[in-house]
């Protein structure tokens, strides 16, 4: 376990905060860490900044993530990792598709040739829009309060994807799945970063598996080829107990 001290915090939106800290560790874009708050629990978190100053962008859902967004400079937390494979970053023009806080883990691969679709339920939940020039940014909201009114996969219908060397997607599985269905037949090069229940983070507990692949170890980033015929991606997941439930998205 590494003990980390919060150096600085930045509020990105309601219930979303980036914690900045120093950690002398090489990390690839797309990798994640397991964050432990003693007495509270441990959860997986991607890194939104991977330079010498590192950052984690947390959206509060439950007990642990809520406690994380309450951390102040000087407060401490513990991490193990980094884990997972990370993105295969290619030079050339890229498109990032980030749903909700999903854009956070895509940030480290953004450069001057990168376009981004950032989507959220509503305008207030859009984060990191300021990291992209207007000319390279597409916004989408479920309620139409900002940008395109609808989901990212619908927006894709209107875009010329042939200009992109590679497309990188991160967000809720529903969104990833629908984007995958759109891209599948358009012969594009795409990578998806998945989120599943993660207990161990190191490829042994089976809680994060999707069609035989461990998201924590063989992922969290998968190529479109690995996912398009996957029997569970977008279809089933297992709960914390290991019970198979349908995602009902077909």
């Amino acid at each position, binding site marked *: 376990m590494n003990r980390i001290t919060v150096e600085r915090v930045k509020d990105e939106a309601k219930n979303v905060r980036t914690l900045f800290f120093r950690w002398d560790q090489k990390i690839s874009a797309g990798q994640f860490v397991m964050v432990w708050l003693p007495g509270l629990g441990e959860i997986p978190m991607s890194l939104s900044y991977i330079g010498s100053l590192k950052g984690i962008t947390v959206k509060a859902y439950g007990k642990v993530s809520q406690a994380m967004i309450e951390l102040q400079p000087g407060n401490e937390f513990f991490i193990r990792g980094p884990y997972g494979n990370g993105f295969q970053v290619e030079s050339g023009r890229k498109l990032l598709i980030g749903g909700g806080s999903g854009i956070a883990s895509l940030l480290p691969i953004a450069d001057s040739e990168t376009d981004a679709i950032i989507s959220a339920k509503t305008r207030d939940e859009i984060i990191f829009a300021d990291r992209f020039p207007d000319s390279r940014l597409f916004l989408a909201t479920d309620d139409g309060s900002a940008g395109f009114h609808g989901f990212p996969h619908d927006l894709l219908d209107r875009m010329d994807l042939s200009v992109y060397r590679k497309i990188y997607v991160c967000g809720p599985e529903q969104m990833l799945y629908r984007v995958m269905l759109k891209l599948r037949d358009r012969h594009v090069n795409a990578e998806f970063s998945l989120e599943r229940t993660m207990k161990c983070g190191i490829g042994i*507990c089976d809680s994060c598996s999707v069609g035989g692949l461990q998201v924590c170890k063989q992922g969290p980033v998968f190529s479109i080829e690995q996912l398009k015929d996957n029997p569970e991606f977008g279809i089933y997941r297992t709960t914390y107990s290991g019970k198979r439930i349908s995602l009902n998205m077909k």
Partner: protein
Amino acid sequence: MADLSTSIAGIRLENPLMLASGILDENGYTMLDVMKNGAAAVVTKSIGNEERDGYSSPIIVEYGDSLINAVGLSNPGIDNFAEEIRIAKQAGKPVIGSVFASDADGFTSLGLKMQEYGCDAVELNLSCPHVKGFGLEVGSDPDLVEDIVNEIKSKLKIPVFAKLSPNVSNILDIAKAAEKADAYVLINTVKAMKIDIRARSPVLTNVYGGLSGPAIKPVGIRYVYEVKKETGKEIIGVGGIASFEDAVEYIMAGASAVQIGTALYTKGKGIFRDIISQMNTFMDDEGFGRISDMVGVAIR
């Protein structure tokens, strides 16, 4: 080319390597993938009569190449597990259903379900060291063990394996109590824990967990050797196997087959194929024609 096939309780295995219970065996697709990667059989995660979340995270601590875990027997409950067995069985290889309960009736009803789902054998988890009322608490009481094993054996057609704990004063007493089982599985994890000195706190939510991986291999070898020497029964060896040398060491100590768990963390699923090919070379070099030629050869 040596013949790597072996058999345990009459079940034929194309090689001596099985997946150990609790590691990548909760989801049918994962078990399928592990068998595609070379495992001759899989043992499922231990399943109980009721759905259980197990402990909340942290449930695992890395200790070098070894691990300390307190997953807490999380499982979907036997009634939700048929589908996973069905998927795993698509590999066309043996699937062994691991079960845990607190008494003979509980074990028997689980065993019957596993049999109904198509499992090739049932493995009784008499040895999980970190959940109150189950596992070790059951498995360290010889009378209870005898009761469970005799009862389930009288009801099931498929073979029954008894997985025993290293956390006892005298394993031979327990082995004797379980002598009606078709084979012993040795060993489960060794009770252990980790404190983070900077957090000034135990790391596992459950405080206590089970140590697995290379740290416990010499302990596992000793139990397999001792139990084989004293009982002569068939044994499946498990605990810290991470190389072909480790697997052969267990076999020479008396195991007819072995299980691999923690090494999937350090070596990934490719470990099965790697060990198979290296074991083959070893056997050819050393003049062993078949696995049974090596079983127990080191026993004095």
